[in-house]
């Protein structure tokens, strides 16, 4: 009876016949074992990055510069705006102006004779008797801050704009991309110069006394212009990425189970263009620093007496025949920052997005 209930095997059936299989031996089981943890995308990229000697050196240089710019002003005995020759209630002491590196002013020399220890002016002082080393360090801090925040602004606007444009496609995309085309063709530096000229006149009385006033209208206009103009290349990049990711099956899957657009963009699409975002942000920072130093050099950047690398170089230009080092120090600092950020950005690109490698 039992035998009769068993269905007769159809010769064309794909059902497997268990008797034709045998158990795996231990040796074969061993071959199937995972030898090591599977790496994540991020770990894999970091591993590749850590093998890139140039990128690692650049990273070290950048870290060093950032640490100096953050921590040294905290315990440095001089202040960037402090004119050493001017003490309240006394005549100004011109012996502090234009000191050469490791020289001291008159009152300082007397105090040294009296046995006091005085922190040396490593790079001397400037024409107004301000310690030059702290001014360079402070200027570096300003340049880094501008670069960092400008890139953050570009990142946020570019990512939001690009992902909306790429995700919705069609007419929305067409209109949004035409706007990008127009903004892209505006001459950015000229617009920055124009805006900072205007803001200098209009904003100065408004922000006087506030923390923004200390920053100066030049800085504000740099940020405004970055927010208005510089995000377009980031938006283009993100849109391109989103367009290709949109075709992937997992997006279709998410949509079929009723995920909202915002959720799909945030959870599925942006994580998949994170490498492009990291790389272009890393390359955006040096370009912002470039722009800031350019403007400061023209006298449109930070407000006096705050230093920036560009304005230090510009101030040093008039004394180039006698105090050439005052020009060389900020110039080299800018080059070092921009160069190492560029090289690090290239390294990141090679590590996280091998397809982009040229």
């Amino acid at each position, binding site marked *: 009876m039992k035998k009769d209930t068993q269905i007769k095997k159809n010769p064309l059936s794909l059902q497997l016949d268990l008797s034709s299989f045998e158990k795996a031996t231990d040796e074969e089981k061993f071959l199937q074992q995972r030898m090591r943890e599977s790496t994540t995308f991020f770990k894999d990229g970091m591993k590749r990055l850590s093998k890139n000697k140039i990128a690692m050196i650049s990273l070290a240089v950048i870290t060093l510069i950032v640490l100096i710019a953050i921590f040294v002003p905290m315990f440095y005995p001089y202040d960037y705006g402090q004119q050493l020759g001017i003490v309240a209630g006394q005549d100004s002491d011109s012996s502090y102006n234009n000191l050469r590196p490791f020289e001291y002013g008159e009152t300082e020399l007397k105090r040294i004779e009296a046995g006091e220890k005085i922190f040396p002016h490593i790079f001397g002082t400037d024409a107004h008797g301000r310690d030059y080393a702290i001014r360079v360090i402070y200027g570096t801090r300003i340049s880094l801050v501008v670069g960092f925040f400008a890139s953050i602004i570009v990142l946020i606007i570019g990512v939001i704009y690009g992902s909306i444009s790429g995700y919705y496609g069609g007419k929305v995309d067409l209109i949004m991309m035409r706007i990008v085309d*127009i903004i892209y063709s*505006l001459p950015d530096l*000229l617009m920055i*110069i*124009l*805006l900072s000229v205007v803001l200098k006149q209009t904003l100065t009385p408004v922000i006087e006394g506030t923390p923004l006033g200390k920053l100066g209208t030049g800085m504000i206009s740099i940020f405004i212009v970055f927010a208005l103009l510089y995000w377009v290349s980031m938006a283009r990049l993100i849109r391109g990425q989103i367009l290709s990711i949109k075709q992937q099956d997992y997006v279709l899957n998410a949509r079929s189970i009723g995920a909202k657009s915002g959720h799909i963009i945030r959870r599925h699409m942006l994580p998949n263009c994170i490498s492009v975002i990291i790389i272009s942000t890393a390359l955006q920072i040096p370009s912002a620093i470039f722009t800031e130093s350019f403007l400061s050099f023209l006298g449109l950047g930070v407000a006096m007496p705050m230093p920036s690398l560009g304005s230090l170089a510009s101030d040093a*230009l008039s004394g180039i025949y006698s105090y050439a080092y005052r*020009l060389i120090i900020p110039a080299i600092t*800018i080059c070092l920052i921009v*160069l190492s950020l560029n090289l690090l950005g290239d390294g990141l690109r090679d590590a996280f997005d091998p397809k982009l490698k040229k």
Partner: protein
Amino acid sequence: MDSKLALYIVKRVLLAIFTIFLVITITFFVMKAIPGGPFLSEKSPSAAVTAALQAKYGLDKPIFEQYTTYLTDILHGDFGPSIKNRGRDVADLIAEGFKTSAKIGLIAAGVAIILGLVLGSIAAVFHDKWIDKVIMVGSTACIAMPSFVIATILLLVLCVLLPVFPANGNTAAGLVLPILSLSFYPMSYITRLTRSSMLDVLGQDYIRTARAKGVSPAKVIFKHSLKNAVTPVITYVGPMIAGILTGSLVVEKIFAVPGLGKYFFSSITNRDYPMVMGTTIFLAIIMVIMTLISDILYKIVDPRVDLG
């Protein structure tokens, strides 16, 4: 010329015209937002004098009327009178300054293109040899230097330490350093661009075929490779001209060259608003046109490029 290309050109030209219009509009309204107007900085003239001056420059009319007048004037090549240089037109001053600026800029662009192509090809042909590495290190370093850094270093080395060239840009010899400082950045960029596209081309099958059938190495490089590798450089010409023009604003300041940059900065400090507006718009128009030409040329030279 096929219809697709014609359509592309029409589209790009329209976009360029719209961009120029936008620049003029932005410049106009942004400059009008400055409170006080250009006469405020002077030794506070009486109300009657101010009113007379405003009437003379048409500043008492409603803002929209001023705007339309300004637009039509620009269409006729008239940027209005300069407020601080009495009796001079902005257009005249721009023409005067631009003669020098254009000379420096064009020579710098020429130097950058020629040297960039040569260095880039050398680097690609001797790929991974020491000469390639030297060229790459040099160009990477130069790209990290803003034009004012290059200019000041050149000034320091070639004028102060070894007085080879005069520091003043009034004479012909004095123009050498401004030209050099302007050409460094684009030269490095073109070098890198040429090297990577040349490497790409040298790996193609048709190069191997040409070599296999015994074409001389020089002919392979110049005729087969360079011709194909040069197309990406064309797209860079537009941005390069824009970069040289803005860069020359600084470089002219450093070397005291009597070019457009000099007028631009004196007008900013003097609050000569018609001059600031005129210079900005003039430079913007040149940049937009240059980008337009280089984009269109690129599509004509390389028909494989997708016409978006």
